[in-house]
């Protein structure tokens, strides 16, 4: 990787998303053009209904654009089959959801391990990797706890470990601090910031939390489905 001029890992070209409710058309995204480079710690902000979550969903191959193109690591998402999109999400994209969304029947360890297991990584290697990640997010000794035995903040840490376990190109975090108190939010952000700085994990947040925006090195502000401001901080 060229640290001085890294390649864009995400490219959005004239992205449009219109939701249809019967005969009513609700435009959520109106012609967004965007490049996100490897190693960025980017926040997409904006008021409710501005289209930030929709953009995140489309980047994450969870939703299709109505028009425009989306490239992840140079791959045009529209050219991929359903199973290829699953594979892309598994191997190249990590997700952190607002509501944690851990699999309730799996332990913390198993939740963090599952993507590696899906990839067919050897048991020994994935154990080593997951134990290291759980230690990085401060969950040592809690590997065997199920989600219902963890606090909200702890669950979100497991979700972060799960998201980065497979060394994805980008982690998409949708309002990751919305369901935790401010102290826990600060800790979670510190963890993600540390992972970004030390392991060069690319993070893209959808947020309207000031704490996230304070730490982000790039803030893309959306209003009514359009980029109103794209600020890069050094």
């Amino acid at each position: 990787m060229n640290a001085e001029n890294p390649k864009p890992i995400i490219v959005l070209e004239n992205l449009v998303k219109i939701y249809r409710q019967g005969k009513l058309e609700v435009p959520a995204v109106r012609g967004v053009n965007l490049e996100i480079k490897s190693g960025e710690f980017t926040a997409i902000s904006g008021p409710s209904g501005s289209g930030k979550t929709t953009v995140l969903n489309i980047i994450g191959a969870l939703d299709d654009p109505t028009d425009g193109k989306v490239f992840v690591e140079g791959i045009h998402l529209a050219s991929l089959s359903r199973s290829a999109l699953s594979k892309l999400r598994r191997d190249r994209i990590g997700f952190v959801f607002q509501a944690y969304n851990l699999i309730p029947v799996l332990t913390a360890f198993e939740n963090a391990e599952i993507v590696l297991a899906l990839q067919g990584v050897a048991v020994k290697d994935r154990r080593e990797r997951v134990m290291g990640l759980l230690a990085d997010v401060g969950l040592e000794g809690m590997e065997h706890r199920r989600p219902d035995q963890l606090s909200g903040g702890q669950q979100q840490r497991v979700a972060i470990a799960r998201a980065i376990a497979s060394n994805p190109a980008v982690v998409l975090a949708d309002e990751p601090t919305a369901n935790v108190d401010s102290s826990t939010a600060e800790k979670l952000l510190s963890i993600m910031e540390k992972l970004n700085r030390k392991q060069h994990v690319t993070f893209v947040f959808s947020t309207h939390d000031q704490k996230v925006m304070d730490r982000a090195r790039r803030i893309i502000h959306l209003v009514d489905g359009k980029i109103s401001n794209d600020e890069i901080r050094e």
Partner: protein
Amino acid sequence: MRSTGMATMAWRNLRRNRRRTALTVFGISFGVLLAVIFTGIGDSSYADMIDLAARMGTGHVTVQHGDYLDTPSVSKTVTGTSKISALAARDENVKSISTRITGQVLLATSAASYGAAMLAIDPQKENKDTFALFDSVDEGAMFESGADKGIILGAKLAQNLDTKMGRKVVYTLTDKSGEIVSGLARVKGILRTGSQSVDAGLCILPIDTVRKTLGFDTDEATQVAVFLYDQRNSEKVAQRLKKTIGENAQVLTWDKSNPALAGFIGMKVSGTVIFEILILILIAAGIFNTIFVSVMERMREFGIMSAIGFSPTKIFSLVMWESLWIGIIGLISAAAITAYPYYLMATKGIDVSKMTGGEQSLEVAGVAMSPVIYADIYPQSILVICLAVFGATLLSGLYPAWRAGKVVPVESIKLV
């Protein structure tokens, strides 16, 4: 993820709503219990009926003259019965072989005359395994040899003829050349079976005496009855015998020589199959309900799985694993709850004589049956039931699994 991992997840998913899983498992178990008991009763009673019918005269496999089945007559004989018996005895499925003369006879005493069915046997080669009435002589005794001068009459027939033990009876037959021939015998025994057709319409005579009366060779009879260890091998044995005997005689399985019984059993088996299909549908509906409700409740979870990289196939297989587990637990549980009732049915049975007016035997398609119903299921039937339940379990899971696999993450997670 390796399949064991999917199996573990599926197992844990079933434990999330234990009451629902337990109810489904109970439904499967109860269905299997019903299927096993009813099939066991069918297997047991049909085998008993077939064996009893075989021991009443025809054997499981019968070798007789080609025209005897359509126009039974003592003139339609098979010769070389010793050779036929020797050929049949080579088959490992054959338990015993009897040579008999069967036909119609006119019996006369000083008081009355009656027509009856005649069965001429060699008492030294028969026993209760080849001849169901061997031990049914209520008064008197079985013949001592094939050349005995006695006759054994059904109780009602003896009453109609107004005769008793030791009295003379003249039996009249038509020989091979169409001439009327007669023999004199003394009543040596009275049969009392409870079967109207036997008690009122059958007489037993010693075979050598009848051969002499009819002018038969010592190696000539109307029938060679072949008895098997297991009636299900009838067709196989008949085919082999047909090849060795050739065109000299007709080889019939029990269902061909006793079409009334075969028709009755066929009808009952069809009823049992329909009943089992209904049970299977109920089981499948129960499992489908459980899996489908469970899947619909977890669509958000499947959406998350899809989002983090579970392929549609993986999600499909996860739900199928859940179906598989339900099937496995259901069958194990079924074995546990079926064992004791089946044991009771196999050893003690149910006495239905009170429901049938106190009769100690029931006549079905001309065969006198015991009023005690037992269950004795064939291993193959158990295998079929298990496979059918397993198949139903997997089939029931297919649609819910397909629905789960088709999950659209963004719609189920509702991030928007």
